[in-house]
C-alpha cells in the first residue's frame, strides 16, 4: 500500500473520550519519540467493511481528533485508529476498543435554578445539551435516554438536615420549609437503561423569604 517501513513505536492508549456525545479520539505519543511526530486517523462503523480517513486529522501533531460528527449516529458502534510518522518512518495502526456512543458517553450534571417563597423552594433542572453538528437538529438527553431521572439533594444549611428526591420531570417544589433559612440544592442525572449517571452538580443556594407575620 505504498506505506513506509513501519518500525516507529506505536501511539499508545488510543481511546474515545465522550462527554454528552461529543466523541473525541485521544492517544499518547509513541514511547521515546520527541517532537515532530505526525499522525493520521481513520475510523470505521462496526459491521461495515471499510475504514474511512479523517482528512482534518491528517498529518497533525496534536494527540486528539474530534470524531463527533462521524460517530453521531448513536445506534451504531465504531472503531477508530491512529498511525504515527517521524523522519520517514511510521508506526502500525493502533485501534480503539469498540465504541458505543449510547453507553460509553459521560453525562454532565444538570444546571439548577431556584426560586423561593416563605416556606417552599421551586427547583428547575436543565439537562446538558447533547453534542450536535452545526447543521444538525438539537437533540435532548430525554430523546436519547427515555429512562432519564433526576436525583435531587436539598440541604438545610442551618440544621444540616438533607432530603433526597428522585424525579422524572425536571421541576420540583419542596414545601414545608423554614422561613428565612438558607437551603442548598444539588442534582444528578440518572439513566436507568442503559445504566448511566452524571456526577452531582455544584450546590446552588437560596434563602426562603422571612416570615412577614413574625
Amino acid at each position, binding site marked *: 500500500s505504498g506505506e513506509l517501513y513501519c518500525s516507529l513505536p506505536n501511539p499508545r492508549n488510543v481511546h474515545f473520550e465522550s462527554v454528552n456525545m461529543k466523541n473525541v479520539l485521544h492517544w499518547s505519543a509513541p514511547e521515546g519519540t520527541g517532537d515532530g511526530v505526525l499522525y493520521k486517523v481513520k475510523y*470505521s462503523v*462496526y*459491521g*461495515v*467493511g*471499510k475504514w474511512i480517513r479523517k482528512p482534518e486529522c491528517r498529518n497533525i501533531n496534536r494527540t486528539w481528533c474530534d470524531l463527533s460528527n462521524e460517530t453521531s449516529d448513536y*445506534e*451504531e*458502534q465504531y*472503531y477508530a485508529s491512529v498511525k504515527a510518522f517521524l523522519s520517514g518512518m511510521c508506526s502500525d495502526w493502533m485501534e480503539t*476498543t*469498540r465504541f*458505543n456512543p*449510547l*453507553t460509553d458517553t459521560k453525562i454532565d450534571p444538570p444546571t439548577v435554578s431556584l426560586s423561593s417563597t416563605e416556606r417552599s423552594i421551586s427547583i428547575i433542572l436543565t439537562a446538558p445539551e447533547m453534542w450536535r453538528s452545526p447543521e444538525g437538529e438539537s437533540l435532548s438527553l430525554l430523546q436519547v435516554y*427515555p*429512562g432519564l431521572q433526576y436525583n435531587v439533594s436539598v440541604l438545610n444549611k442551618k440544621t444540616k438536615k438533607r432530603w433526597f428526591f428522585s424525579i422524572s420531570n425536571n421541576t420540583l417544589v419542596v414545601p414545608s420549609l423554614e422561613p428565612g433559612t438558607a437551603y442548598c440544592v444539588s442534582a444528578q442525572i440518572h439513566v*436507568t*437503561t*442503559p*445504566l448511566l449517571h452524571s456526577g452531582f452538580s455544584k450546590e446552588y443556594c437560596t434563602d426562603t423569604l422571612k416570615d412577614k407575620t413574625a
Partner: protein
Amino acid sequence: SVTEIRSGFNAIKANIQARDPIKTLSILSYPHSLHKFKSSDRCCITHHLFNFYVDKVFKHCKTEDSYVNRKISSIANSFLSVRRKLGQCHEQNQCMCGQESTEKLDQILVNYEGLNVTSAAIKSLGELDILLDWMEKS
C-alpha cells in the same frame, strides 16, 4: 432481569469484544440495524432473539478465563428467566412476526452460520449491547 444482563455484559464487554477480530461483519446489524424495525414487531423479534441466544450462542461461549465464564453463565441464566416471561407474553399476545422481521431473523441466522461456531458465538455475545440498546429504547 434486563438490568442484570446489562451489568453482567458491561463487566466482560471489553474482554469479549477484544476476542472478536472481525470488524467488518455484524451478526445483529448486518445489513440493517435492529433499530430500523417497527415497534409492532418488537415482541416477535425479542422473543426469537432470546431463543437464538439461549439455544445457539451461550453454549459455544467458553473461554479460558473462569471469571468471564462465570459472567457468561450468569447472563445466560438471566436470559432464561427473561425468556420465560417473554414466552408467557408471546403466548398471550400471539405476537406475530411480520415479513420484514422474519427476513431479519433469517438474515441473523445466515450471518451466524457464515462464521465458524465459536467465532459466531463470541461475536454474538459481544453484540449483546446492540440487542439491549434496541430493547431498552422505549
